[in-house]
């Protein structure tokens, strides 16, 4: 059971056993395929679980039962949906730019994969550990908007175009706030490497150690990341009561499914990022001085901690979505440029001051 607490042994032993049997080049190739497969499976699982979770959670918020028919408690509902979407006729309308139209889902999914690669899931379970991990993630994740813009523009549909342009203005605006709120914590860690950021929280999560500025940064991060993933109440790009389905109006079948999947994958990515930077990633919850309590907490494997924290943030995002009305485009931009951005800048100064004075744990 030791591997559950530290995946370094596991990966190393796999690597060693492979090295014993194969040449250096083959080992790298096999490892690449293994990692790729693992991530694809993770993606598929994420899609299945998150879609089901969203439907159930929304149902419980709305005093409904949600899907109940396929499988016990409707657990196989998403699978049934995937099969249905596979069987759907792929449609392209006649004036659409066919190449870009087909390209858009690829771009969205590729960015989602490339961002996911840098996330630390547990100790030793991280595919890519850059020393500029945070910068890398915030750079790549914002590429996804290109896919949305392409999808909207190439569909030759007016709703799509408006949806895509809205999304463009929205994602690039909120990109700033996501970056700045993460930077607030970077001041404390002194590193952009995600594994280092996690390690630095071994004696307490930054949201507790960083006092009020960290909490403010977390709230801003929550709002901005919800907006960056185009989720309600910021789902202007696909506002169904205004633009029928926004940028993916013209998509059907599997291509639509990938937009749908990418939305959930992005939600997972930003939640994981939030969990890593603010809530200590896979670090267990500790209270100084309570040894027994801390030991019990340590007993829970880090991967569960990680996914627990991620689910918590995802749940919060779902809670937002199923409670609030949608913002209007000018409100959305006002919120970012007149509220989040100035507060964020001030917050960074306060945090820098705290660090300067050493007023943090």
């Amino acid at each position: 059971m030791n591997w559950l607490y530290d995946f370094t042994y596991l990966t190393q032993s796999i690597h060693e056993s492979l090295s014993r049997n194969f040449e250096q080049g083959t080992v790298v190739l096999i490892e690449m395929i293994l990692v790729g497969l693992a991530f694809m499976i993770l993606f598929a699982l994420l899609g299945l679980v998150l879609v089901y979770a969203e439907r159930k959670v929304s149902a419980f918020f709305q005093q409904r039962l949600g899907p109940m028919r396929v499988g016990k408690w409707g657990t196989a509902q998403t699978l049934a949906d995937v099969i249905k979407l596979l069987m759907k006729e792929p449609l392209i309308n006649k004036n659409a730019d066919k190449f870009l139209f087909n390209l858009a889902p690829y771009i969205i999914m590729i960015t989602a994969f490339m961002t996911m690669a840098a996330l630390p899931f547990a100790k030793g379970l991280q595919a890519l550990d850059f020393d500029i991990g945070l910068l890398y993630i915030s750079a790549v994740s914002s590429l996804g908007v290109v896919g949305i813009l392409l999808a909207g523009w190439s569909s030759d549909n007016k709703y799509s175009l408006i949806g895509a342009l809205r999304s463009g203005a929205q994602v690039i605006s909120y990109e700033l706030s996501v970056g700045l709120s993460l930077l607030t914590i970077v001041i404390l860690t002194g590193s952009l490497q995600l594994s280092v950021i996690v390690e630095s929280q071994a004696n307490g999560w930054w949201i507790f150690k960083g006092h009020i500025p960290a909490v403010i940064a977390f709230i801003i991060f929550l709002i901005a990341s919800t907006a960056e993933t185009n989720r309600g109440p910021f789902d202007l790009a696909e506002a169904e009561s205004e633009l029928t389905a926004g940028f993916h109006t013209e998509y059907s079948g599997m291509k639509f499914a990938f937009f749908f999947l990418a939305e959930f994958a992005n939600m997972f990515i930003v939640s994981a990022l939030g969990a890593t930077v603010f809530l200590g990633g896979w670090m267990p919850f500790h209270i100084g001085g309570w040894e027994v309590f801390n030991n019990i907490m340590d007993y829970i494997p880090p991967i569960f901690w990680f996914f627990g924290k991620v689910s918590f943030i995802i749940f919060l995002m779902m809670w937002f979505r199923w409670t609030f009305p949608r913002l209007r485009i000018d409100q959305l931009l006002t919120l970012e440029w007149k509220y989040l951005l100035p507060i964020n800048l001030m917050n960074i100064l306060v945090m820098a001051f705290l660090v300067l004075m050493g007023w943090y744990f």
Partner: protein
Amino acid sequence: MDAEALIIFFFCGVIMVGAGVLVSNLVAPRSKNDQKDEPYECGIPTQGPSMIQFKVGYYLFAILFLIFDVETIFIFPWAVVMKKVGIAAFIEIVIFFVVLGLGLMYAWKKKALKWE
């Protein structure tokens, strides 16, 4: 693993979407119909072209973003070394933020932040 390994994840995305679309193309039914070629506009034929020059308001925010994103890039290295450098870094960033804030105030006062 190194940064070159990113190529795996690039191909993961390509394979996943490609496989999905391929399978769907194989199993999905096809039927030709003039109405299916039409863009969806609530069941009414579209009037005029859809891909047109569009409202400039959206792009203004893109320009604003460019300005501020470059600033953010400057803050990244600062944030990393802030702890080590100490007071000098703090004073520098205050000056930097004052300039940045002035820029934001200017845009605010010019009503560039107001959506029209």
